[in-house]
């Protein structure tokens, strides 16, 4: 197996689910989300030809995935009005009640919030949801750790105000 194929297989084992969640969070339409997921896979495959251990595999994978997703969102002709984290006081109501009932209210609200956030706030939130640390999020996004910390604090405050989830207290420190 070539080094490129090896890296791709390794990344697939570790991050396939995370990247599928990323695609479904940024793209509401299921078919387009699947298309975006494959686009991320294709970008990762191509990028592994250039991977020489410049950073951790996880950082590389998340950077490629989030950048491809950001390009996808930027190309959309119409999208929701973006609102920065510091201006949001409560989670949005799920925009599609039927879908929300089917997939859980929590997921529907979280995804709707992600789609409302501008870059890099949405990227910070997605990485935080995957359980990444402030340092890891800073490496992927390019924000300073303190800037990430401010955003994570704000996200946690938003989440704890709405969900009774004990894990929120200790995550991403």
């Amino acid at each position, binding site marked *: 197996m070539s080094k490129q194929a090896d890296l791709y297989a390794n990344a697939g084992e570790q991050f*396939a*689910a995370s990247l599928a969640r990323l695609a479904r969070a940024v793209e509401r339409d299921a078919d387009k989300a699947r298309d975006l*997921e*494959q686009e991320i896979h294709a970008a990762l495959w191509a990028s592994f030809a250039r991977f020489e251990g410049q950073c951790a595999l996880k950082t590389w994978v998340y*950077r490629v995935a989030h950048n491809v997703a950001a390009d996808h969102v930027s190309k959309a002709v119409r999208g929701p009005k973006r609102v920065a984290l510091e201006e949001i006081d409560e989670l949005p109501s799920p925009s599609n009640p039927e879908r929300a009932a089917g997939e859980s209210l929590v*997921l529907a609200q979280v995804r709707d919030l992600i789609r409302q956030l501008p870059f890099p706030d949405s990227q910070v939130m997605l990485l935080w949801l995957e359980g*990444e640390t402030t340092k890891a999020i800073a490496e*992927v996004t*390019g924000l300073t750790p303190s800037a990430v910390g401010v955003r994570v604090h704000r996200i946690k405050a938003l989440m704890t105000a709405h969900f009774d989830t004990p894990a929120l207290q200790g995550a991403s420190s």
Partner: protein
Amino acid sequence: MTQLPIPEWAAAVADAEFTDPALIQKRASKFERTIKRRNILEYAAGALCVVLFGALAIGGVMKSEYLFAAGGALCVVCTGIVIWQLHARGSYRLPLPEESCLDHLRSQYQRQYDALHSVPVWYLGPLAVGVFGFYALMIVQFTQIGGLGKALEGTWKPIVATTAFFIFVGWLNRFAARKLKDKIDQIDALV
């Protein structure tokens, strides 16, 4: 990786897998396809202009209307310059998605800003030279037939409309470029 903050999140699509590499290699990336489609459209539009003005130039030569022919030829040359510029600018390196998210976002905005900001120079400029050169030659031609007054009477409206169109397109591009500059400044403020 630390404790997951929302368990429902991690439970979603837990069985996902990467696409088979064999399938990935067969399919051109969406980005490449988009660029190819855009280039084909732009080249087709350019080719249409070249054919139309080229026919005008050839027709002018055949009927010994050399000013018409010169006007058509000028437009062909200027359209050729624009097509060449599109080709040269479209072949810039593809963005590297493994940059940090902020670097990637900034470089994407910067590329768009550079392209929009310089539209008057590389796009509108050559087109304006071709179109207004054509008008000028028409005025000379009509002046020889019916005098300057008659020539201006028949051409001033299209000249004003074309000028307004060029100014509007230039302003629109500068406006869009300014919006992008604001976004670039916002990103710079974050690091």
